[in-house]
């Protein structure tokens, strides 16, 4: 498909509605439209210009928008996140790329102490996006596979978004760029070129703060996001076929602020909840979700709220280790069966 080929190199044009694209292309298309529409939007990060980004997500952007809107930086995550904060306060809409999301740790102070607290402290909005490839399953080892959402969940003033589908990737990056707050946009690198979807008619905006019921079910709610959504859906199909268990699958999409309403409605309906995430279990988003369900759905629960996450270890490198570390469909089905029969 020629549209898709142009996606990996050369200057970019917006692709037509209806075009089939990858998750990565959807993000690129979303940014492209926002940049076309708003001169305030600019990109900043390492190797995003000439090179087009480590994953080539911004290939062609430099040619299209010029060096004033596609800024290659020195290796200084704290520096360029700070720079984006300053520009955002001036009314610009910076979109910061972390080459790998793991490097966000180097900008932690700027994010949680400067960007996140600014509006509360003195009323000045900081509309910016920090995006980058997160997640594992690519044997990237401890520093190229992390899911840092758990670290930032605790920072008041931050929003966190983690799309699982092509449509959401497109609609959420656009909403993130338009949001007047600092938004962390965690892309899952395993999904970049592995899933496809269709570019919508119209703006295709997806609201921040709303979860989505991806599959309706009656027996148990699986709450998840990002790459694990696909694991959940596979398990749901298998369990429906093999065991007649009907799973409701919820894609959180936004991790902060959480969409309590959708969660609670689902769990009240099914009476059972399993939170599935790729995070290390302790201190995870999954823990926060589980705690909320436990608090808000107590009278409706027919079994304990369970979490299925990675264990509390760094992400291991070697394939057998990483496979053992990650939740997979088999083990998920087992857990669900146990909980469904609780």
């Amino acid at each position, binding site marked *: 498909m020629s549209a898709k080929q142009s996606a990996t190199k050369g200057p970019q044009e917006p692709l037509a509605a209806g075009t089939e694209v990858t998750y990565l292309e959807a993000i690129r298309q979303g940014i492209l439209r926002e940049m076309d529409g708003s001169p305030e939007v600019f990109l900043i990060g390492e190797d995003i210009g000439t090179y087009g980004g480590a994953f080539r997500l911004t290939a062609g952007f430099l040619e299209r928008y010029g060096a004033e809107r596609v800024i290659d930086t020195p290796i200084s995550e704290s520096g360029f996140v700070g720079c984006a904060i300053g520009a955002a306060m001036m009314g610009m809409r910076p979109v910061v790329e972390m080459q790998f999301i793991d490097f966000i740790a180097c900008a932690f102070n700027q994010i949680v102490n*400067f960007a996140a607290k600014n509006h509360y402290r003195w009323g000045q909005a900081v509309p910016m996006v920090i995006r980058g490839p997160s997640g594992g399953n690519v044997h990237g080892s401890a520093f190229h596979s992390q899911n840092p959402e758990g670290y930032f969940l605790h920072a008041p003033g931050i929003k966190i978004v983690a799309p699982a589908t092509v449509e959401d990737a497109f609609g959420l990056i656009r909403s993130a760029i338009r949001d007047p707050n600092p938004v962390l946009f965690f892309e899952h690198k395993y999904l970049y070129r592995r899933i496809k979807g269709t570019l919508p008619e119209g703006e295709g905006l997806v609201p921040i703060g709303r979860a989505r019921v991806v599959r309706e079910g009656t027996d148990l709610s699986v709450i998840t996001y990002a790459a694990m959504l696909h694991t959940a859906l596979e398990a749901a199909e298998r369990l429906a076929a093999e065991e007649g268990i009907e799973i409701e699958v919820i894609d959180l999409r936004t991790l902060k602020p959480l969409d309590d309403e959708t969660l609670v409605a689902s769990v009240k309906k099914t009476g059972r909840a399993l939170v599935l995430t790729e995070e290390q279990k302790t201190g995870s988003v999954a823990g926060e979700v589980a705690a909320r369900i436990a608090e808000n759905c107590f009278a409706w629960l027919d079994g304990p709220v369970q979490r299925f996450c990675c264990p509390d270890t760094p992400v291991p490198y070697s394939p057998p280790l990483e496979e053992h570390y990650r939740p997979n469909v088999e083990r998920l089905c087992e857990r669900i069966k146990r909980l469904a029969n609780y």
Partner: protein
Amino acid sequence: MSRSPQDFGLLHPTVEPAAEAEKSVPSAPEPAPEPVAMKATGEVKPEASDEVQSLAETSLGQREQLLLYRFMLLNRSVEDRLSSLYRQNKVVGGLYGSRGQEAVSVGSAFALEPQDFIGPLIRNLGAMLVRGVEPREVFTQYMARGTSPTGGKDCNLHFGDVRRGMIAPISMLGALIPVMAGVALAGQQQGRNLVAMTWIGDGGTSTGDFHEGLNLAAVLNLPLVVIAEHNGYAYSTPTSMQMRIENIADRAVGYGIPGSILDGNDVLAVHGGVKRAVDRARAGGGPSLVEVKTFRMKGHAEHDDAGYVPAELLAEWAKRDPIERFEDHLLANDLASPDDLAAIAATIRESLDIEVDFALASEMPPAERSLEGVYAEAPPEVAVPWRAVR
């Protein structure tokens, strides 16, 4: 270049000295005033990598010099009031001052244009006053009142106002430098022809953000002026334990940007030297690092008796008090009479009575306010029309 207080929406009206009554329209430049010499008393020595500003000349005329004087005195007077409020337990939390460093904040901020931005730290009250901050804003902040600029949410000088070109810092030192680089970047992108200015202590130059921010600004050639306040100590840590160099300006070498050293207790030297950096930034010459040599004449904060500072050092620096030196200069050069200076002091005194009373009479904020405003509902407005960015 002539400045008028209205350029910045300055100051409580009652403190305007009589001489200031007829003001020039901001956009109508006056003929360049006669340079007025100030006696050099600073001991600042030239170093290989530095340029030293001559203290013997200034572009500022009488009116501007009197403004400088008034801002320095206001700076000190506000802080003196705060000290006594502190002793009366009216200040909530710590109190930080800039005694002895008034020339730095005032002289440097005075080199800016209305469209410029500052990112002041805790010792840059003077710069905020120059930008038009009213003393009551400072008193209410320190006293945690509901009428404070942050509505009681944040403390001391931790408030900003983009309409007055002022970004609030966070406590983490260094963090403001990349942020002000971003302000400079946005100014460039938006075609606002602005300069961003910020300050950093000798201690703050040890932070990673100082390095990342200055380096980024240098590479992107941003109109950023960073003023390093070399005041002898970082809390209790003398500069010799903070860095292995004598002059912070030497750090400019590593960024390929101009570094200069100024006598920080000479407000004209500060203004002149900083003005050069500001002009260069505005002309597209990129960032500068301007070191000012000064001294912190009190403890780190009001609770700190600074027992670790040798008395001789304090005595030595007391002789170079920036306000007294400037008074001498004004008098010696017939720029003001003793009565003029007394009149300025009196108007400041009177206005501060009013400002303090306002703060004291202000209520604490309503408790529920603590829950408001975590997220913004609307983005900041872009202050100027866009130029085409492509």
